[in-house]
């Protein structure tokens, strides 16, 4: 018998005795014969931190969360402002080379760009990406409740682009702003069905650690800086 069968056998044997339901102290157990595989779980959206209904409220909450996380968030009035905003940041940070991937918002951002740019779409050299100053990506969603950016292997130039370079720049559209993680998951399901990318990540602020005396330090292994541009549309 394989270990798979052995372990599943032990589990089935163990579960023959029912366990008391949570919160029912010493109370009766639920019958568990018929309900195996039942997916009725409580709707908990209302218990999580509150999020406003309009885009303005959500953007304001996202901006506040981003500030608390020491990420930069810029809400631009027009898509045409993207190149200037990007170039201003690049100049201020003194970037020499950036890495990115193909995408319509990225093409808009890089209009008039003079910096050397590497693209990951046809593969990349890890050492070159590591030595670059910034990684520019699109995303799947922005999450107002937590100030997070949802990236995926498909939408954001692979797995490493959003974590290996020391500065991560995200370009997003206002329509990508969602209330909470649940809404972000619903969006993924609508977009991909069963064919999820092999990698998804909620990025919440720059890389951080508190492992030395519980003191916050940014840029432990991933980016030291995170900048998010959001444009209408």
């Amino acid at each position, binding site marked *: 018998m394989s270990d798979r069968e052995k372990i599943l056998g032990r589990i089935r044997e*163990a579960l023959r005795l029912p366990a008391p*339901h949570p919160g029912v102290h010493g109370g009766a157990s639920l019958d568990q014969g018929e309900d195996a595989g039942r*997916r009725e779980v409580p709707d*908990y959206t209302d218990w999580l931190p509150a999020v406003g209904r309009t885009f303005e409220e959500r953007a304001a909450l996202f901006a506040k969360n981003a500030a608390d996380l020491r990420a930069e968030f810029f809400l631009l009035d027009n898509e045409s402002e993207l190149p200037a905003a990007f170039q201003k940041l690049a100049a201020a940070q003194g970037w020499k080379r950036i890495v990115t991937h193909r995408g319509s918002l990225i093409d808009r951002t890089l209009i008039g760009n003079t910096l050397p740019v590497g693209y990951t779409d046809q593969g990349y050299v890890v050492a070159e990406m590591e030595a670059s100053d910034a990684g520019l990506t699109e995303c799947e969603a922005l999450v107002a409740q937590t100030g997070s950016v949802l990236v995926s292997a498909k939408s954001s*130039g692979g797995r490493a682009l959003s974590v290996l370079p020391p500065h991560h720049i995200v370009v997003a559209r206002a329509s990508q702003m969602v209330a909470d993680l649940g809404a972000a998951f619903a969006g993924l399901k609508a977009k991909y069905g069963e064919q999820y990318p*092999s990698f*998804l990540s909620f990025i919440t602020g720059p890389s951080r*650690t508190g492992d*030395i005396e519980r003191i916050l330090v940014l840029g432990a292994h991933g980016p030291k800086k995170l900048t998010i541009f959001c444009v209408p549309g």
Partner: protein
Amino acid sequence: MIASKDFAARSRQVAADLTHRGFIHKALSGYELKRDENIGKFQNWGAARQSAAEIKWETINHLDHYLVEFTSKLEARGAKVFWATTGQQVCDYVSDLARDKGAKKIVKSKAMTSEEVHLNAALRKAGYEVVESDLGEYIVELAGHAPYHFVFPAMHLKREEISALFEKELGTAPTRDPEELTMIARKVMRQVYCTADIGISGANFAIAETGMISITENEGNARLTTSLPKVHVAIMGIEKVLPNLSDLALFLPMLATAGAGQALTGYNSMIGGPRQPGEIDGPEEMHVILLDNHRTQLLADPEQRDALHCIRCGACLNVCPVYRSVGGHAYGTTYAGPIGSVITPHLRGLHEWKHLSNASSLCGACTGACPVKIDLHHHLLHNRRNAAKAKPAWWEKIAYDVFAWVMDRPALYRLAGKLGYWGQKLHPLVERTFLDPARSWTVTREVPKLAPEPFRDLWKKRRQSATT
């Protein structure tokens, strides 16, 4: 029993080290403030805990169903699944894999299951270079310590100690700046990610619906570990599974809040399989190891089955007066604190580890802090009861028999009370000396004084004065 003697000796030592306790207390007080602030942002934290407990109950009580769903989905996406009954099987599987791949260097992000099965030692013995990438784990590994806490592994070390350690091991210049210290490790680790042949991670959750594992971290080391090396190995306990991807919308904020006082942890990544067709990067192979290692034994105890709901946030350690006094190294277990005291007897033997359940004030702070509502302090009592039932200590049995015999005889009980009262008057003559029969108590504590007049005498007098 060796484990219990070690525990007592180490506890005594740390509890007397007021500097150390002050340091730990300060670190955990900061956590409490941030945690309370974030709990306050929830519209209903209590209801969120109940929902989380119900979801975990549903999963654990249909674990076979969800594990089959999880593994078949994951395998359909090209990952290999290995079921391991014992820790040794995990070590063998990873060693064999490393040999087959011709690997030299292995990078790891934090996995408590790998601590549980002593994977690093096994791989090093087999000749592989193994580097822990989580900053705290990296530091404790360099120092040759076990993790002090399963969320904050190096919280017992002061920056000066870490600086001295880096100076000795890496030849870097001394510094008191936590940022500079972090950057030293970052620089070392960057080279490791780019050259490692295998990346090993843990998993905080596994999603049955989509066949994904979910990894929670702040540093980005787990992302790099699971992105750059050609082979990714994830090790997880069989209890980590959740039914739906959307369940993470509840569990990720709760883990962050209960575990570290954050609204959400820096990176929450869901990985379903190796690099898929059309994707740019990612490992060519993904192996997921499901570890039993006596978890099914805990599952077979319906009374304590909810201990498998644990999401390893560490909240119960952070609030525990015992953990805060004796520290994480006193336990001598992979999982310290209240949850460790509850599950270790199941994972490693009741009689060798029952002493941990006695090291509790039964204050219930752990139960109150648990985001999935595990009845921790009652389980400590259950362990005590089970241990006494399975193998009663002879002296305990005699003591209780005598006690019951006296309590059954009012005249004897009265006499014992009188003797106790007069005996206590003589006690100061021998208190804390080797002649003191209550020495093990009086060394560190005051003896409660018996009242000069027993309650029954007072009651009798009161009744008499009422009738006259």
